[in-house]
């Protein structure tokens, strides 16, 4: 039997004005288990807390009920008070007789009666409380960053800066991501490579950072502080440790017709390649789909020219298993496919390109060495039409596009238009827009400069149709402000394609049990207050995997994610919330119902041997809750058909005792 102390707070006149606190204290004294009852003006004050501590000692209290304001206000206060008096803090229950009683009822008798009932419910619950101790788990002081774009790079650098080890897993042969493909960045127009490649070098040189390039995460087990991750290092047929990145092989390889994905297939590379000059790691990779040696054993040129002896045609995929305390997802984005947008003739004409392709066309390291030339005939385009919102902001029933605004297109289109006019003043540039969205530092100024200083024609309206006619493109569009339909002859059409999360994100989310929205963007733990954390503890979000973002935003979020990771890794042990689910293994059916509703993946199953009353043994599948991962929602307790699953601190018996006390 508990020895319960009841402490009724006046809260000045806030409670005492409508509730007869003396009567409440008297009435509750008669409840089962109650051995002490008192009232005081301000229970939360130092004097009030001392009164509680003293009573705990004098009356050997095992449980405390405070009738006061909302537990959301002072539950933590009174738990600390209890702990200071040597009582388990979870032996405290609050009866909310202010917000949910004295403040909402006007008449003293009614308020008093309800306060007594609320007090009784709290007493009934405390009678069934048991001391709870938060679980502890150790923290592996190493972080994993999945994705080596600017988001992953920045997160890794920031974590490493704090002195923790970081591994980057990047599926491409080099880190750098989309930013490495860009030419200039808005709104400052500094060159992307100039600001990105030094960071890539920093990553390569940082002793705390390991790069697993050309690698993928294939399995994630464990939980916050203790993830076990399996990484597949794909065979690149080149020994990374030997390759000097001299590039001799990439010049001599006879297989020249390999589409160059780094340049969005607008030119070709060799079957052995280094994606670009500043690649990190600067190591060659053989494309097994094109290499003659790998396909039919004939050739071997690269092996012959490699003075370092780095070529290894027999290399196999390698699996690495590593432990991590935290995982950062930085899987980034891709432009959506333009295949379904027949009206823009993307598949019919080489001169209809996406903005990312335009980036490569204007990049000094791109297929045209930075000269803006039409992909079809290499001529200089005299009239360029940019189309915004291609596939963005579509209706939910529209299968071609995405419902959301891709956020970055307005600005990069303004950038492209401006840069074109700057370099080629003779080129006429028209942008078709629905809205120009420029909320960002110096963004609107930038857009206005494109219009006012560089003479870019912005037309409010959408392009309805692009049709190749001869070597020109006929663009049919509407000018909504002039209420006209326009037919423009253009040399080049640039589509601001919507962006979508990388395809690797969905299977990764499943592995991580991290939740995603319907667009496959990772969901944050709270949209406003916890924007860089996934609801799954220990998993953090960096960059466009969480939603469309430009570079400054990505870098800011990457830093924020890093600071969260550092905060986690700085701890030696994690203390959990003790109000977690637990399964009674004698009653558990192993049916998986609980596992299916758990949003955190906190429940796993194991086969356990049971000794039966008849001295035989039985092996049964039972659920095991990982208290470090469980957040205590209690969803599993209701999904469980046998009632084996219960929630500490909110046990079924406790809640039913409250129901009984209220209904008595």
């Amino acid at each position: 039997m508990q020895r319960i102390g009841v402490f009724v707070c006046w809260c000045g006149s806030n409670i005492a004005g409508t509730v007869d606190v003396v009567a409440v204290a008297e009435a509750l004294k008669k409840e089962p288990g109650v051995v002490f009852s008192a009232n005081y003006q301000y229970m939360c004050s130092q004097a009030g807390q001392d009164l509680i501590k003293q009573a705990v000692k004098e009356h050997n209290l095992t449980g405390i009920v405070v009738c006061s304001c909302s537990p959301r206000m002072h539950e933590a206060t009174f738990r600390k008070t209890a702990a200071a008096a040597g009582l388990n803090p979870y032996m405290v229950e609050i009866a909310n007789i202010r917000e949910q009683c004295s403040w909402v009822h006007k008449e003293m008798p009614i308020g008093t009666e309800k306060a007594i009932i609320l007090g009784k419910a709290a007493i009934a619950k405390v009678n069934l409380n048991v001391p709870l101790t938060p679980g502890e788990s150790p923290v592996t002081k190493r972080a994993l960053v999945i994705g080596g774009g600017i988001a992953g790079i920045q997160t890794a650098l920031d974590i490493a800066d704090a002195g923790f080890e970081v591994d980057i897993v990047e599926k491409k042969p080099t880190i750098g991501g989309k930013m490495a493909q860009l030419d200039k960045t808005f709104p400052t127009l500094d060159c992307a490579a100039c600001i990105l490649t030094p960071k890539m070098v920093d990553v390569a040189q940082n002793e705390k950072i390991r790069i697993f390039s050309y690698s993928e995460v294939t399995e994630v087990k464990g939980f916050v502080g203790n993830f076990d991750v399996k990484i597949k290092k794909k065979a690149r047929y080149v020994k990374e440790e030997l390759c000097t990145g001299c590039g001799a092989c990439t010049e001599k390889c006879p297989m020249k017709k390999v589409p160059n994905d780094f340049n969005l297939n607008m030119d070709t590379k060799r079957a052995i390649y280094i994606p670009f000059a500043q690649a990190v790691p600067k190591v060659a990779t053989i494309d097994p789909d094109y290499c003659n040696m790998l396909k039919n054993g004939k050739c071997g040129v690269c092996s012959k020219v490699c003075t370092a002896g780095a070529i290894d045609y027999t290399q196999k995929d390698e699996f690495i298993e590593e432990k991590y305390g935290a995982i950062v997802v930085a899987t980034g984005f891709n432009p959506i496919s333009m295949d379904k947008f027949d009206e823009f003739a993307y598949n019919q004409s080489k001169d209809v390109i996406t903005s990312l392709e335009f980036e490569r066309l204007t990049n000094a390291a791109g297929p045209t060495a930075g000269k803006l030339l039409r992909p079809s005939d290499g001529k200089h385009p005299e009239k360029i039409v940019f189309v915004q919102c291609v596939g963005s902001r579509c209706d939910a029933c529209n299968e071609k596009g995405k419902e959301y605004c891709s956020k970055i297109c307005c600005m990069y289109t303004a950038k492209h238009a401006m840069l074109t006019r700057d370099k080629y003043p003779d080129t006429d540039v028209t942008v078709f827009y629905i809205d120009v969205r420029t909320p960002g530092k110096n963004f609107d100024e930038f857009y206005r400069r494109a219009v006012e200083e560089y003479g870019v024609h912005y037309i409010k309206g959408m392009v309805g149709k692009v049709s190749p006619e001869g070597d020109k493109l006929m663009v049919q569009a509407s000018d909504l402000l002039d209420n006209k339909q326009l037919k423009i002859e253009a040399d080049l059409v640039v589509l601001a394609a919507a962006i979508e999360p990388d395809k690797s994100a969905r299977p990764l989310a499943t592995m991580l049990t991290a939740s995603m929205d319907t667009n496959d963007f990772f969901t944050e733990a709270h949209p406003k207050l916890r924007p860089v954390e996934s609801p799954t503890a220990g998993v953090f979000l960096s960059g466009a995997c969480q939603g469309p973002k430009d570079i400054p935003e990505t870098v800011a979020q990457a830093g924020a994610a890093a600071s969260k990771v550092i905060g986690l890794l700085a701890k030696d042990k994690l203390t959990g919330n003790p109000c977690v689910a637990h399964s009674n293994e004698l009653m558990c059916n192993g049916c998986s119902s609980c596992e299916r509703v758990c949003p955190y993946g906190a429940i796993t199953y194991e086969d356990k041997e049971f000794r039966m009353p008849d001295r035989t043994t039985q092996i049964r599948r039972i659920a095991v809750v990982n208290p470090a991962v469980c957040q205590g929602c209690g969803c599993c307790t209701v999904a469980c058909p046998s009632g084996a699953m219960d929630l500490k601190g909110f046990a079924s018996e406790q809640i039913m005792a409250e129901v009984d006390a209220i209904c008595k």
Partner: protein
Amino acid sequence: MSNSKKYLREEIIRISGVNPKKCMRCGKCSATCPAYDEMEYHPHQFVYMVENGNIEPLLESESLYRCLTCFACVERCPRSVEPAKLVEAVRLAAVRKQGNNRMTANDVPELIDDETPQQLIVSAFRKYTK
């Protein structure tokens, strides 16, 4: 908006099954319309005017019969607003309103001349065989 306007607006929306509020005013319907130059009110205006209950001018306008019902706007609208269905609904409203101009399918052939676009003939049959 007056009650009669509201009523007409509701009627058009009901007949067409179109929600003009979904329109984000991108103008792609008008950009894509092959009969644009023939029309006094263009597809995007149809949507906007219906939304605002400004339907009287549409009922009076030749534009109604210039629409080819080719459904290019329906196909390309990113917001699934389906302007051609609105035009069709306003047409129906015009027909119903006058009450006495209801034709039967048999009346159609004699109205056809060399100038009549094929799609108009098809939609005329579609409508008057209902």
